């Protein structure tokens, strides 16, 4: 059970959260302007990286808020968590722990 740092509530156990998939995939402002392929990219294609991954979590059994996190998908250690709307933090040095 991971420990996840909710930007509002602090460190909490994983079972209070739900995972929300890859972060920073904004819904297009005008979906009708997109080609089928562009829409499929938005809807389905994912980076799925082996390494640091920006992803969404929701503290559903806590404050209820969605937020973003950067996690190393190999070690499962979080590098950072941050509020929605904030940019993905620059993590030039990788000290995931």
């Amino acid at each position: 059970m991971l420990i996840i740092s909710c930007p509002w509530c602090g460190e909490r156990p994983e079972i209070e959260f739900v995972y929300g998939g890859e972060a920073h995939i904004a819904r297009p402002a005008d979906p009708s302007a997109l080609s089928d392929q562009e829409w499929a990219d938005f809807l389905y294609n994912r980076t799925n990286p082996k390494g640091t991954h920006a992803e969404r979590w929701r503290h559903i059994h806590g404050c209820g808020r969605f937020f973003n996190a950067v996690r190393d998908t190999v070690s499962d250690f979080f590098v950072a968590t941050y509020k929605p709307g904030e940019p993905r933090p620059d993590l030039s040095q990788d000290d995931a722990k």
Partner: protein
Amino acid sequence: MSGSFRTPSGGRIDRAAPLAFRFDGTTYGGYAGDTLASALLANGVHLLGRSFKYHRPRGLLSAGSDEPNALVEVKRDAARVTPNLRATQVELYEGLDAASQNRWPSLARDAGAVNDLFAPFLPAGFYYKTFMWPAGAWKRFYEPKIRAMAGLGKAPTLPDPDRYTQNYAHCDVLVIGAGPAGIAAALAAAATSARVILVDEQAELGGSLLAAPDATVDTKPATEWLADALAELTAAGVVLMPRTTAFGYFPHNMIALAERVTDHLAAPGPDLPRERLWQVRAGEVVLATGALERPLVFPENDRPGILLADSARIYLTRYGVKPGERAVIFTAGDSGYRTALDLAAGGVAIAAIADLRAAPEGEWPARALAAGIDVRPSTVVTGTSGRLRVNGVHLAKVKNGKAGLNEPVACDTVLMSGGWTPSVHLFSQSRGKLAWDETLGAYLPGQSVERERSAGACRGRYGLAAALADGYHAGEEAAAAALKGAKSPTRSTVASRAFGVVATETGTDGFIGATPHGRNPAFAKAFVDWQNDVTAKDITLATREGFRSIEHVKRYTTTGMATDQGKTSNMNALGIVSEALGTSVPKIGLTTFRPPFTPTTFGIFAGIARGDLFDPVRVTPIHGWAEARGAVFEPVSLWKRALYFPNRGEDMHAAVARECKAVRTGVGIFDASTLGKIEVVGADAAEFMNRIYTNAWTKLAPGRLRYGVMLREDGFVMDDGVVGRLAPDRFHVTTTTGGAARVLAHMEDYLQTEWPDLDVWLTSTTEQWAVIAVQGPKSREVLASLVEGIDLSKGAMPNMSVAEGRIAGVPTRLFRLSFAGELGFEVNVPAAHGRAVWEAIFKAGEPFGITPYGTETMHVLRAEKGYIIVGQETDGTAGPDDVNLGWAVGKNKKDFVGKRSLNRAAFFMPDRKQLVGLLTRDPKVVLEEGAQLVADPGAAVPVPMLGHVTSAYMSATLGRSIALAMVKGGRSRIGRTLHVPMPKGAIAVGVVDPVFYDAEGARLDV
């Protein structure tokens, strides 16, 4: 009741507390403080089990959790039977009843032992090479035979009546292992303000301190020092947990502990759990898990009476039990000497010490020689004899790596020591990197990943003095790291502490692999994995067959896959592979250590999640009434819903027909409280609804209801429900019962992450409102006498409207709508008053023959009207148009969730499945839900299928069966005949419009 091998004094058993126990039906005596293993040994019982494959007779190998042989069944009563327990860990209690396993008819005369004769034909992986002919024989003949032979104990056959509980715990420092390193670490951490937990798998804390008769710490005998240290820890508030195995190291310093609470008690109280699962979140972990003595791999090293040397010493010093009268020691280091000397002092004759080393030096060999023991350097055991107990060995000198002439030596026990293997299991589970230490010939903890540190023998710091010093240092560091950033320590300041230790250390010599024996290697049975009967030649065969990775060797030979998880076998297997391939051990690598450290009861994972506590049983406020009325319930997600309300003697069919008739002709009452409800409030509420639903909401007037459809972003129908607009900025949304949580999460997701600028907020009100559906032509009359401030007339309250007021004295949001297609209302009242209002309505309805009905009737009534149920007509692959909901899609809306996806090729295919009605030729035949539809029932397999029946009922209203179906190009097939092929023949059906009753909606317009 002392057994014949019990020493007259000594040990930590309570000789004032004799106990009687049974093994394979024979009654023996032991003492409190014994394990089943020590007590049997004291009675001279060495034969304790049979091996997995060859059914060879086996005795104890060890004294701890690494025991591969002595697995027994312990039975408290018919339902409390536990297989595969290690006799070395079973604590004796009065009346303990144990039995050996994997033998028939008896342990001494086991028919399965015939396998041993066929052993030459059963090498590693033999089953992959045969049993393939004739076809089908594997399933019919070979596999059942193999399965019956395999397996050790028998699975229990009755449900386990014992309780298991689970606890979460948090601490600053968790110390795993209460040997000298762990005790010292706990002492160091306890000297700070840190919250400390110290756990050990054994019944008594102390580890090697419990078997160190000659050692002193701070001038006190080891056991006395231990008692003082434990008292100090207790006084400092350290949580001490004996009988607790740290079995799993999970991410982010979550350690799983299994605490055995009652297995050692003769009469456990009914309120105590048998075991507890502790999920401990530790700031820092100190691993003080010690080291395991390694067996030596030599021919016939598996006979009863052949033990690990230090285990034999533990039996003597802790339990006062001699492993035999005349011992041969086979050793690769000093440990064998220590055992020899302790045993000699305990009255055991030492026939010889065979030492693999050419020139054993140091204090231990010197002391052995001084004691007159026959010490033989460069000597190996090349074979043993004895049937159910070892009665002799052959010793031979080794020259240039080859064993010379054999010399027989009589003995009744052989004690072996291949050196020590640090217990790095938990470190490895934590994903720490292991590092090969050439000097020690061992893998040691290297780079850590989690916040942990190892101390003592588990990182190669052998010996009492080193373990204490290393442990204390680790404890100090752990506490400091855990408290960093916290308030400064409130108790004493951290200060290093030195321990004055007087003990003779046993060095670090050891051996990995198979010892030379000079016999034909193809036929000598030198066991590496005792339980799984893997021999050195099996491992070399695997390498010869191309299995070069250690994981391949493990899987092909099954070495290390027994219930001891390779504790005794892994390193020797590695050594043999290394020699066979001519590759160094570190280049071959290690198999992965996986949880659990030792086998862990299923029950503690399940905990108290059983029966009604397996999942919450959700009931509505009206549940009690339905129960009293004799309703039959069905599970719908977590809820229990009334399915129907049978009168005396009625089956479901009759009850549902009666209930349906009541709603169509009079009035029915239905508990719809499980419907999901969400209050959508804020200035931008309508805009939000526009984006989430396919429908347009801007023009919906307050006081009106509308049926809403919601899509997933991929265009498929996700949920539906009626929505009421209570005010310009307030919507009362309903969802399906099963969809409530999903819909709210879906809405929150879009609101929080895509449209945070909208001034709108969502609140779940599912459980705020009890919902009482009052349906039927007489529903208005029933409610009229109960409502205050609401005009129920058609003009004031047409279909699909909502009014606020009071009913039966309680505030209500009264919806006029019908899922049955009749004049009808849904009465929303605060849940606390749900039962009272229900009863009031029922009372008011009695003159009208009001009839309670359940979900089955609700389903029939809606099907007559062609109303879909999301999850029944739809299956996650239907778009709105497919289920005739195209009208609910706002054509002029620029965007809503899912809209773009509807514009993809698949949604324009002419053969999309569409909702239609079906009428069987024979009106009495009710189709089976899930049955398939075909055009040609005579077509060959695979028969092209056109769709399936989604709902099918006998309609009392229509006096015939009806069905709904999803059919390819369904709307264009209306008027045609299709077929439903059933195993007993095809049923012809006419495809019709899915609205069977009151298509024009006249009954709603009253």
